[in-house]
């Protein structure tokens, strides 16, 4: 277990999530993929927080936890995003009876 291997795992997970987000046509699947990407990013935060020396040792040991704080914020925002996103999905489904992203092209010119 090293920083490089952790970062590599996180990168692989991120790219899997990205592939899913780009290739699935179901909105809920896209959301799931996005969650995977979120978690990959969280993993890098924690890994950096543990392995890379911030200036914390000179200032305040508390700032060693900056990475974790970021993760908390990401989790919170992701939760809010999912709540809203799924709300939108349901509303969309109610109005169009479909949650196929390739069908939802209202942004078209």
């Amino acid at each position, binding site marked *: 277990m090293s920083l490089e291997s952790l970062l590599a795992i996180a990168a*692989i997970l991120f790219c899997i999530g990205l592939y899913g987000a780009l290739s699935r046509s179901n909105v*809920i*699947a896209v959301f799931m993929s996005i969650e995977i990407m979120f978690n990959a990013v969280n993993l890098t935060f924690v890994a950096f927080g543990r392995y890379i020396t911030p200036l914390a040792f000179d200032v305040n040991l508390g700032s060693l936890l900056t990475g974790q704080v970021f993760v908390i914020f990401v989790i919170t925002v992701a939760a809010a995003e999912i709540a809203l996103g799924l709300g939108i999905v349901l509303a969309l489904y109610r109005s169009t009876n479909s949650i196929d992203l390739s069908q939802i092209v209202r942004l078209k010119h």
Partner: protein
Amino acid sequence: MIHDIAFWSLSVITIVSAIGVVVTKDLFRSALLLAVFFVGIAGFFFLLSAEFLAVVQVLIYVGAISILFIFAVMLTSDIQRGNPANRMQVVAMVVPALLLVAVLLGVFTSQWVELDAEVQDTVDLVHTRAVGGISESEFAAAVIDDEFSQKAIQEADIADLLVGEYVLAFEGVSVLLLGALIGSLALARGKGSR
């Protein structure tokens, strides 16, 4: 040793479950695999001595978000259509692959300045006990007998950062959550149920 075994098995679990989420035709199974993936990430957190985060991850992601997804899947009867791929398979494959190559290149060619081995224990201790106090025995296990650094470690607390240095972001996020709450309520009620 045990760490390495745990690490590699967690890696396999997360990657396989992530691929499973992405490629499985059945959305319901996707959602279940996603829960597995979340648990795997929580394991990583635990392994990185971020125990608090591991707990939070299980609570929020596994406990709440996965359930939300399952609800959403069940509420939309598109399930029978499954999880079809769109028409951009090749591009959607190539672009993440390129990104992966670029990122990995960056990861493995960079000279990371890692922590000295002797302070790793201190860091781990701080990470492990991001919330809550540390007992004498834990200090003893980590071979930290210097009273001054004991005190510094005791005082390093995630709450201090949240309501101290990042209080603005903290408040912002709370407002965001409130907005999301109201917004999703409004969306979920819809037009007809007024």
